């Protein structure tokens, strides 16, 4: 349709770079328009980037968002104006004049790799102070408490002492009881959340009590091709539990481990500290029986 108010410009301004704004920008940009995508925040992505799942389908929020962010970030037709706010808009449809204030970022975006070191080193932090949550009382037997305190006392230092402490508790008690972790948090003045994150990140820690004998089946590559999965299945059948579980009489805990470096003897299992190699499922089952009380 023609208009008498001068020529129309093939450019579009999209305000707000949330998932909606990004999708709109992408569609427009694909159709050949030059897009100016403005957001007052320092990054595109909007609120959705903070969500885990989205209603009502429970889709992974990041999975929906990330491809659009990447596409938007690299699209030649989209000019991103983040950390910017609109001051005024003049004109009419087809021919607007927009004044945008770009706030000082003090970082050269061409050189920044987004490593995050600068924010870690910045002395000024925006810390939100909340009422500290009620800390449950630590429930530990006097024996255990003194043992834990002794272990904690062995390692000085802050966060860097956590891993050795957790390892020692795990070796001593076969698992990490909640009360002990709380005790570590209390003495070391480290949030229990951080300790739990470490405890769940590493494979060797267990947050549940484990059996007297820890049976591990190596499922490293060499053992895998030499039949370790069948040994694992055999153990699951014989013990009546799944991998990772403990028998109800607390005799055995069955675990799969990634390579214990004895590939020359594959397939390999360990029961407690004893190692057995070159086993068929039937031989492995016989060995297991020897450990039964």
């Amino acid at each position, binding site marked *: 349709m023609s208009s008498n108010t001068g020529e129309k410009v093939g450019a579009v301004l999209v305000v707000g770079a949330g998932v909606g704004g990004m999708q709109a920008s992408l569609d427009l940009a694909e159709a050949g328009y030059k897009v100016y995508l403005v957001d007052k925040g320092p990054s595109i992505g909007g609120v959705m980037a903070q969500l885990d799942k989205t209603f009502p389908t429970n889709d992974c929020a990041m999975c929906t968002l990330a491809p659009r962010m*990447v596409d938007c970030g690299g699209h030649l037709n989209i000019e991103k104006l983040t950390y910017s706010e609109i001051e005024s808009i003049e004109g009419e449809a087809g021919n607007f004049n927009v004044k945008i204030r770009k706030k000082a970022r003090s970082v050269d975006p061409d050189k920044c790799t987004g490593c995050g070191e600068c924010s870690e080193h910045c002395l000024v932090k925006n810390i939100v102070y909340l009422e500290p949550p009620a800390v449950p009382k630590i429930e530990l037997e006097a024996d255990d408490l003194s043992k834990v305190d002794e272990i904690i006392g062995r390692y000085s230092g802050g966060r*860097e002492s956590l891993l050795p402490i957790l390892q020692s508790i795990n070796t001593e008690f076969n698992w990490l009881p909640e009360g002990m972790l709380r005790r570590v948090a209390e003495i070391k003045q480290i949030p229990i959340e951080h300790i739990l994150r470490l405890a769940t990140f590493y494979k*060797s820690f267990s947050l549940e009590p484990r059996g007297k004998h820890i049976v591990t089946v190596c*499922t*490293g*590559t060499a053992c895998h091709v030499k039949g370790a999965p069948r040994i694992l299945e*055999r153990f699951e059948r014989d013990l009546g539990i799944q991998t990772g579980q403990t028998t109800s009489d607390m005799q055995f805990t069955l675990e799969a481990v990634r390579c214990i470096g*004895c590939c*020359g003897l594959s397939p390999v299992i360990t029961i407690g500290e*004893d190692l057995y190699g070159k086993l068929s499922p039937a031989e492995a089952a016989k060995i297991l029986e020897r450990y039964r009380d």
Partner: protein
Amino acid sequence: MKSYRTNVMLCGGTGCVSNGAFKIKDALERELKKHNLENEVGVIMTGCNGFCAQGPVAVVKPDEIFYQLLKEEDAAHIVEEHFLKGRPVKELLYTPPAEKSPVPKMSDIGFFSKQRLIALRNRGMIDPEQIDEYIGRDGYKALAKVLTSMKSEEVIQEVSDSGLRGRGGAGFPTGRKWESRRKDPRTPKYIVCNADEGDPGAFMDRSIVEADPHSVIEGMIIGAYVVGASKGYVYIRMEYPLAVKRMRLAIEQAREYGLLGEDIFGTGFDFDIDIFQGAGAFVCGETTALVSSIEGRIPEPRQRPPRTTLWGKPVVINNVETWANVPAIINRGAKWFSSIGTETSKGTKVFSLAGDINNAGLVEVPMGITLREIVFDIGGGIPKGMEFKAVQTGGPSGGVIPASQLDLPVDYEQLNAAGSMMGSGGMIIMSRKSCMVDVARYFLEFLNDESCGKCTPCREGSGEMLRILERICQGEGRPEDLDTLEELGEAIREASLCGLGQSLPNPVLSSLEHFRDEYEAHINDKKCPAGVCKALITFTIDKEKCKGCRLCAKNCPQEAISGEAKEPHTIDQDKCIKCGVCLDACKFDAVLVA
């Protein structure tokens, strides 16, 4: 120190110890005493000999007689026959698969003769728990030379000239790494030895630490002197208890001699090493994750650059094997080292051979040796003369190399060009009994499990690829799945932050390239050619071969096998759970998998 006319170098690596090496040692000593030979013949526990498949093994020096598959009961026989009468015990010698008569001498056994030892120079030659034995074989000589007569620049020049590259996988030139840290003005500086050998199927780092911990310590002290570091860490996996024990002992001994601590050799140089034990996370092998782990943070990889730091200070992180090479280079010179190997990759590399291979174990070979030599001359080929199908190099993030490329010379560049990588040096040999789809599924399962979860493409992408592969193994694959796998693989490779994510699709992509027909057999014909994927195979009994011994029926957990004694048996397919017990039980090869 007493010296003996004969030394029995009994392997004390994890493999042999688990098979009773210590009991054999006691038995030998008992027998020697019985024959009053205890002052003539010494029994020495060494580190891993490398020939793990035949363990427990022992080498009798100086005659170099190689004994294998030893048992406690053999001790009396060996002492009586060999040490008293000088006749090697034939039954305990090694017989190569293709030959009939045993080969007594270690140097005549193909497995050993083609190897060239630099990083493993002391394996089987010394007791790793005695620092004097290490010194006796020129140990700490390089350190003395460096500390008393060389400038940092000269050492770096020497290491650069030698062409030594990181043995942990990526192959970054060691000299260049040291130089950049040396120039860094920040202090204190740190040295880290990466012994977090997470690749399933690789065990050279464990073996070096167990067999020769002082070579690693010496390398680290030299590195520390060069860059000006005062503190070092050895990051060892908790799955390696023996290695931790030996390293701890070695550090203590080195401290006692003043080789660690303050004022080393009276030169005013201070340096000390502590052990840091990992707790079971594959991603900790990645340098930025490793330092986070030491710092007590969540070990998620970080963006580089800036360069990896420990507590914000410069750090040199090298792999065990790299450190072990350093003293040898200083002692024998860059020229000697660089004369071994290929144009771009100098020196030797330690590989661990495992999987479907006769001589599973640890081998150190010059760079540029062909895969064929490794698999057949050293590895002794595939058991029962089966056909070689492929070799997986570089661990879970590496790729498969098919039989058609067996003549590939092994170095960093050639392996990359073939779609795989050097990695830490694991080599898993596969025969027709290995299903490539299953192996790819296995690696994806591993990587999906070990992905730290920081980057979405790696975390979600590996899960998605795994679901597709599982579907294919279940016989529910769809024709479009293969294209989806390739597309996903490309996306993950592009969009991940660290090496784990970037190389995660390799096992799938490389097996798709070389063994697409196997994937197609799973999807289109619903068949697993290797007879591995349970949903696609059935067990049956060959009526001709079955002797009716009832062994399989007795062992079957489902009571799915029926038949009268001395009559051919049959398997009830409705009851069969495909556990494979019958296959193992049968002595007549009468159980068929199809």
